[in-house]
């Protein structure tokens, strides 16, 4: 047992110091609420809420998909994903939310979870490629957040974008006007 502790601990220290030296600002240091992080470069007080920074800052852009997901991109090249009000109303009372796992690598259109409501399981797809860096664990104990605040506290996952340009380049991501127009046809 001692052997294994020694073996794993030394590279761990080495890698963390290395990464801080070479890549500042390190992304993990800024946003991992769920992992142990050394040497945070953020001097702001740690706010209990994962959303604290994002609440004060506001998104760079908000996009929608034809599958009724929303994507709010922030200046740190991450984006929050959830389902739209239209979808949440169509689903009815949400009784269970299946979340992705932190660290999952997702491509556009990959399943990142599902929502169960009134005996139906509905898949949720990732509107963008990247890595899942946070999930909304509040949904596990309170799935109804999807109904009460789908485009806020009902967020599902936060994704570190693989390519920031994807958001503007994608033809599948709709602006608010485009999305609203698409709803009128339904």
């Amino acid at each position: 047992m001692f052997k294994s502790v020694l073996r794993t601990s030394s590279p761990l220290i080495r890698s963390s110091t290395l990464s801080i030296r070479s890549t500042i600002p390190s992304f993990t240091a800024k946003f991992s609420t769920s992992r142990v992080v050394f040497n945070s470069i953020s001097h702001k007080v740690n706010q209990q809420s994962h959303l604290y920074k994002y609440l004060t800052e506001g998104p760079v852009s908000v996009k929608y998909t034809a599958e009724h997901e929303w994507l709010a991109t922030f200046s740190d090249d991450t984006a929050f994903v959830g389902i739209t009000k239209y979808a949440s109303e169509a689903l009815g009372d949400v009784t269970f939310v299946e979340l992705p796992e932190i660290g999952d690598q997702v491509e556009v259109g990959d399943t990142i979870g599902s929502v169960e409501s009134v005996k139906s399981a509905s898949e949720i797809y990732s509107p963008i490629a990247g890595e899942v860096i946070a999930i909304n664990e509040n949904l596990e104990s309170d799935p109804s957040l999807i109904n009460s605040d789908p485009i806020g506290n009902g967020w599902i996952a936060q994704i570190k974008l693989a390519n920031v340009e994807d958001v503007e380049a994608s033809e599948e991501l709709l602006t608010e006007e485009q999305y609203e127009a698409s709803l009128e046809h339904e």
Partner: protein
Amino acid sequence: MLTILSRIRYQAPLQLVRSCTPLRRFGNVQVPFQDDLNSMEDDDLNLGDFKHYEESPAMIAKKLELLQETREDHTKDVVNQSSSPEITSSLEEFTKLKEPVVFVSKLTNPYLNLAIEDFIYNEMPKPEITTSNYNRLMFYINSPCVVIGKNQNPWKEVNLPVLNSLSIPLVRRRSGGGTVVHDLGNVNYSFMTTKEKFDRFTFANLVRDSLNSIPNSKYFIEVNERGDITTSKQDDGINYKVSGSAYKLSKGKSYHHGTMLLNSRLDVLGKLLHRDETKLGVVDSSNSIDSVKSKVTNLEITEEQFINAVADRFRDEFGNAIPAEDEPITKDEYDQDELFGLKDFVEANAVNKTAKIITIDDNMSLPQTVLDDAKELKQWSWRFGSTPKFSHEIINNKFGFKVRFHVGKHGALTNYELSFFDIEMRLLSVEKIKESFEFLELHIKDNALEYTGSNVAGFITNDMISDWVGQCIDGTI
């Protein structure tokens, strides 16, 4: 709706002899008897000599040659077992058809049927214009099994000790909803359409109307505000449920599937779904989906009656219109019908709507995806391991203690808590009881232990306690 049974009817001689077994599948038309008759019957019917029936080498060679031309990959099977089911078609030929199709599975393996259902669903093409539809309807009957919803907890919903003692498999499906019991007296239907067309009532209403069109049936059927298919209010004031349904929505598509109780063993059903919490313990799983218990009854009609009635109505409602009189079927469609040997069927059904009916049996080859998926559905990690985290508290009144097991991700036991209460006579001291759990504690500290009765019991050193724990978890010791 002749066609569903047409396959069987062509084998008339056997059908006459064994008409008492409607579920029997006739594997191969060309080989006369296979194992359908036992040796006693051989004598009765003067068929003993046919036991040694073999096709002439020339015939076998000719068949092989024919098969080789069309289906190289199946040659090996044919060589190895020239008297076993012959592959006559493959599922992929039909799943991509751009027209409404009814699939009737004659297979009874629940994992295979679920995998086939998913395959048909995933392969279903989406219509380019909203006025056309490529809807699918599938029927299947499973050998006895308990099927839980995607987000359910089997320890909570099912009496696992009874399930295991009957060697009945537990299956987790990919749609939402609650727990149902399948057996050969229950027919499952699955209606697939686009996501835009999804609603919970369309198909429930269609099933209701088809059932009510069956003459002399025992019950008048209704659909309640939840979309459940029930009998009308009976003398005891209860609307008995006859069908449990669940739904799945994914990109552009949706399905509504459900069970239909025709002649199920309701006594077994009740035993499998009833858990005595004082004996088996309380499963605390606030995150998972709870089943809604309902009074159920059998419709007491045959599966043919049910399948024919629903398929007929599906055809009338969603089938393609057949142009009247002068059959100016487009070149494209005409070719397809001929290719699949279904030309006769299309022509024979001179009604104004048509939908292909495809029988899935041992003669049909299944794509590798289906076989792989069936294997995946069979994994413990999916059936049990994908349960949201929960705890399970069992109380031992004989020894005066409680143990609460905490089960985390992947169905792994993460830790446990022991608590003791006063009893008149302590047969085992508190220390002894604690001691018998020490090995378990040590093990789960470093290892993921799947939460099964035999796994957990295996690490409890006192035999009386370990047997009891195994019994409470799932009856395996």
